[in-house]
């Protein structure tokens, strides 16, 4: 078969043959034509460019040129920068200490002020309790105080005029009581004395006989004497005369007698019938408020409640926490506090120094431990002639007592309920600000190596603040000493681990407190 014929065969067979056309072929051709139509229409069309487009592109390029040059640019840094940053990073926050010092100063100032007030009160009313028992002290003549005797029936009239229903002693003391400052009391007494002088003059005018007049003057002079200060007598006399220049002869006589009696030292009142056992209801003036400064020693054994929390958010530290929980067991806590405080009525505030420890047992069994024994054999001259190395595999038990030690400044406020005399129930709350935090013992690392607690760097150097609440019973064993028993709960407000470390470690404490309190005043 010639080549021509061969081709013809194919041509004939295929000329009229029909192949299957894909269903969407016509759609595709139509869409192409549609696009072509748009292309033809819009191809040569030029739209107006928005104003500033080129400028905008230029601006972007301008910005970009700065960004490119500066984003990765490195500038030299002065040598002094890092030491300053380092110092700031490791600087301790002393604000809590300063606050506590301020509070301490405030307390000391308050104590001094109270102490000063107390001394002033005692000076104005020396041993005022003694007045109650009719036992006047030696310094009774200070500040206008003279022996006070109960008035007789003859003087009752004047006494009642002075202050109905009370004795002279009550009058003099009640005057002073109402105005504690020294100068105020003297001023009040002077005013009162002038009123009395006026009344005496009036009484003298009313006296009908010379005997009555004399008796009246004598009785009144005792009151005058009682109210006069030795330093004020001359002034008082002249004041009396000057203030009543127009009174009659009887009045003048009475005044002279009053004056003369007032000035005579060592005047006796034997002719007057004094009641030797007066019932003077004198208020307690020595301490207007029950305040005291005290020292307290407290011993606080207890049990620590440890919490180890994974704060990483992805629980990647949880296995390590479990390992630590298995190897470290909190056993006990112990505290010793030396406190100074103020009691005021049923409130107290105290501060001082507190030392406390948390004890744990670290117990770790390393079953994959090994040890290498190297034996070196030397000759007589010391030269090494043989070395034997033996490696032993086995279990190693590592046990140690871990101690976390805290030195704190406590500030504690208390409120007392007194069910009975000498018995007190105290409700207390406060805070311990940590000054120093130390640790010793062993800890497991994440790679299960046993590390010295002192070497790990994820603990803080100060433990922050913890709050305490307590309920206590206190028994007064003497006037100045008392012993107490407390149930104390202590809650930490900050972690022992540094910020950023994925495990938070805290200790709550449940403690029993034994205390001895000694009142300084």
């Amino acid at each position, binding site marked *: 078969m010639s080549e021509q014929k061969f081709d013809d065969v194919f041509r004939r067979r295929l000329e009229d043959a029909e192949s299957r056309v894909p269903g969407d072929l016509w759609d595709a051709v139509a869409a192409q034509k549609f696009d072509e139509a748009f292309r033809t229409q819009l191809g040569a069309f030029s739209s107006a460019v928005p104003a500033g487009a080129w400028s905008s592109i230029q601006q972007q390029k*301008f910005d970009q*040129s700065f960004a490119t040059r*500066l984003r990765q*640019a490195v500038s*030299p*840094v002065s040598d002094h*920068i*890092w030491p300053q940053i380092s110092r700031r*990073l490791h600087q301790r926050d002393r604000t809590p200490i300063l606050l506590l010092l301020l509070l301490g100063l405030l307390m000391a100032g308050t104590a001094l002020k109270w102490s000063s007030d107390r001394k002033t009160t005692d000076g104005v009313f020396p041993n005022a309790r003694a007045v109650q028992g009719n036992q006047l002290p030696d310094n009774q003549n200070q500040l206008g105080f003279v022996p006070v005797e109960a008035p007789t029936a003859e003087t009752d009239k004047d006494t009642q005029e002075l202050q109905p229903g009370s004795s002279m002693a009550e009058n003099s003391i009640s005057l002073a009581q109402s105005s504690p400052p020294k100068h105020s009391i003297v001023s009040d007494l002077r005013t009162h004395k002038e009123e009395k002088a006026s009344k005496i003059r009036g009484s003298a005018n009313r006296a009908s006989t010379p005997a009555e007049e004399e008796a009246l003057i004598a009785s009144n002079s005792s009151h005058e004497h009682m109210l006069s200060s030795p330093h004020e007598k001359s002034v008082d006399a002249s004041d009396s005369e000057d203030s009543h220049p127009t009174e009659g002869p009887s009045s003048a006589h009475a005044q002279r007698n009053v004056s003369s009696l007032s000035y005579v030292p060592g005047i006796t009142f034997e002719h007057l019938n004094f009641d030797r056992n007066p019932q003077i209801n004198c208020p307690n003036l020595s301490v207007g408020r029950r305040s005291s400064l005290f020292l307290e020693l407290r011993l606080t054994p207890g049990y620590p409640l440890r919490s180890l929390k994974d704060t990483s958010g992805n629980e990647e530290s949880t296995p390590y926490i479990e390992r630590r929980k298995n190897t470290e067991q909190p056993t006990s806590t112990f505290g010793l506090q030396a406190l100074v405080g103020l009691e005021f009525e049923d409130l107290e505030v105290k501060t001082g120094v507190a030392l406390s420890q948390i004890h744990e047992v670290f117990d770790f069994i390393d079953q994959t431990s090994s040890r290498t024994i190297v034996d070196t054999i030397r000759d007589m001259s010391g030269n090494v002639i043989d070395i034997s190395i033996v490696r032993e595999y086995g279990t190693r038990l590592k046990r140690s007592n871990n101690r976390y030690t805290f030195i704190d400044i406590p500030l504690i406020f208390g409120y007392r309920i007194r069910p009975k005399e000498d018995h007190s129930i105290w409700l207390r709350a406060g805070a311990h600000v940590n000054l120093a935090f130390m640790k010793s013992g062993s800890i497991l690392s994440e790679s299960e190596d046993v590390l010295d607690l002192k070497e790990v760097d994820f603990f803080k150097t100060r433990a922050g603040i913890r709050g305490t609440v307590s309920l206590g019973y206190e028994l007064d064993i003497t006037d100045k000493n008392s012993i107490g028993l407390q149930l104390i709960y202590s809650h930490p407000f900050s972690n022992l681990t540094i910020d*950023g470390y994925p495990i938070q470690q805290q200790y709550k404490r449940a403690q029993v407190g034994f205390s001895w309190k000694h009142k300084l005043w």
Partner: protein
Amino acid sequence: MNQEEVIAGCIRQEHACQKHLFDLVSGKMMTVCLRYARNRADAEDILQEGFVLLFKNIAKYQGTGSFEGWIRRIFVNTALKKYQRKRFDKERVGIEHVQEPELDATALSSLSEQEIIALIQELPEGYRIVFNMFAIEGYSHKEIAAQLGINEATSRTQLLKARKQLQRKLLKLHSIPL
């Protein structure tokens, strides 16, 4: 020491890791501070403050995104803290209609980085901050407005004025008459 180790060390407040990170990024961050600050002394203050913040907050870095970008943001925020909103209150809002001179985008190529920083430092405070945030950090006007507590329009105005000033300075440097 790779980046993860450095970060972990910094979280544990290890001095060596902190120093390593400081050596690694302080140069770049100094450039950031210099751009925002009026002078070198201010920039050093910002740098110190920024590093203290960085080391205190490094545990908050989640590991997502660029670590350098995260650090840069701390320094930018530290720099911005120095500038109060009141600095912008007195700025007049409105774009001056000034024909911007043509400037080749490669005009900066003849300048060193320190000269470019000096140019930026010469800008008034408001201009400088907005230009830095928009042109170099890539913040939008909306973000700048939110960050600085100003209007978006103010941000745009500040940026245009900053550009104009920079262009003038550059043209002057290249002795191109305006």
